[in-house]
């Protein structure tokens, strides 16, 4: 499947070569099975989230707040559609193992579930004209279209490494100008069921970004130092271009409700995490990455708790002694 045959690039070779039956009992990379198991055990559908419980809450939002929310979800729908139809399938010809291809098939399908789930939110909470208006907006909004173009250009170029870079940036960075809003509503006890659904999406995207970034790092390790430096420079350039556009996109959406600066902090924090998924250092200094504790708590309950034992008065902590542990105890 992945022979590198003379003058053919790997993806050309892969497209031309025959297909062998996949054998999950012969793994070249344990990570493929680990991620496959994680993704399949996390499978979900929007029908399992009681979105209709959010109707009373939805009715408390002002008209600009409702419009903002629908537009944010429409923007997210576009990203999920891109990833399902183009992003994940485009990674398949570059796969290092047949199992990696299968993981991308799972990712492509789950992105379709994500895109579909926004329509479930719309049909539960919104009127048809409101939704039609938002889809029209998505086609006409220059910054939303620019972000799609920036990513799609890399997906269609003949550079497998940059395809993965763009894919990780979409999974781990571009979604977050949108994900901010349901976390914000949730921290104000609004649209909490919708937030539950979004958290399922966030969890999936985190595995996707981690896995594609891991495969990227394997590809990178095989390149010459010059090529590595080139790809790294391209990656930072693309991040900066996407960031600049995200700021404009964020302003066009959030200025009206006064949340732009807060969203930008969330963007910095997630841009650094996206770069880390590629094995690179963060770009934004810590001072501009301190996400509001309420948002962090909405994302990860307990994440705002002080788990920095070092800075507390740790000396008073009584260290108990151990108890017998068995494999079963760990519920592994």
């Amino acid at each position, binding site marked *: 499947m992945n022979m590198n045959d003379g003058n053919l690039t790997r993806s050309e070779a892969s497209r031309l070569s025959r297909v062998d039956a996949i054998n999950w009992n012969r793994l070249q990379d344990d*990570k493929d099975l680990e991620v496959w198991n994680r993704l399949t055990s996390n499978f979900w559908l929007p029908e399992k989230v009681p979105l209709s419980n959010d109707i009373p809450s939805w009715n408390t939002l002002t008209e600009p707040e409702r419009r903002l929310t629908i537009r944010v979800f429409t923007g997210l729908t576009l990203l999920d559609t891109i990833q399902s139809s183009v992003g994940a399938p485009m990674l398949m010809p570059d796969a290092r193992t047949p199992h990696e291809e299968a993981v991308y098939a799972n990712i492509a399908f789950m992105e379709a579930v994500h895109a579909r789930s926004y329509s479930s939110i719309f049909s539960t909470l919104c009127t048809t004209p409101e939704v039609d208006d938002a889809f029209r907006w998505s086609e006409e909004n220059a910054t939303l279209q620019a972000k799609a173009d920036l990513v799609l250009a890399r997906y269609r170029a003949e550079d497998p490494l940059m395809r993965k870079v763009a894919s990780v940036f979409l999974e781990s960075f571009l979604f977050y100008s949108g994900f901010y809003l349901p976390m914000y509503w949730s921290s104000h006890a609004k649209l909490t069921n919708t937030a539950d659904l979004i958290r399922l999406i966030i969890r999936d995207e985190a595995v996707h970004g981690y896995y594609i970034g891991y495969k990227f790092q394997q590809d990178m390790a095989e390149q010459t130092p010059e090529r590595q430096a080139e790809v790294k420079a391209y990656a930072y350039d693309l991040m900066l271009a996407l960031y600049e556009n995200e700021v404009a996109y964020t302003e066009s959406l959030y200025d009206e409700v006064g949340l732009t600066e807060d969203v930008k902090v969330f963007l910095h924090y997630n841009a650094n995490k996206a770069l880390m998924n590629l094995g690179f250092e963060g770009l934004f200094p*810590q001072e501009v990455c301190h996400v509001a504790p309420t948002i962090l708590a909405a*994302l990860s309950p307990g994440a705002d708790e002080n788990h920095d*034992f070092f*800075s507390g008065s740790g000396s008073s902590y009584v260290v108990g002694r151990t108890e017998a542990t068995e494999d079963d105890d760990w519920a592994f």
Partner: protein
Amino acid sequence: MRGEGVERVPPELIYFSTRSGNTHRFIQKLDLPARRIPLERDAQALAATRPFVLVTPTYGGGGAKGAVPAPVIRFLNDPGNRELLMGVVAAGNTNFGAAYGMAGRIIAEKCKVPLLYRFELLGTDEDVTRVSKGVREFWTRQH
């Protein structure tokens, strides 16, 4: 190593890192003596010989089940290793919600040691500074 000669007993870290190497990279930045729990099931088991702090990733994206990596479980199933465990530092990702750094919480409760710190992915410079300084001070207090 920078810490040696300052503390009478230099702290030791024992850590696990999967093939993705995130935790491994974090450890390398700490400038503390550290040994890695082997990935392969058939590898020679690592045995602690003196008190240590454990650093482990969390297998994220799920619940408690499967959060602690299997090689870490095997390592802690050895009573000799548990006896010398002083505390745990856990890596994770806030995108996994309540499961963020869950391996650390599970081990801390199970082994009755403090969860010292949590960090995300490769860790930031801030995380490196806090853990590097924190482990040294924690050690001084214990000895």
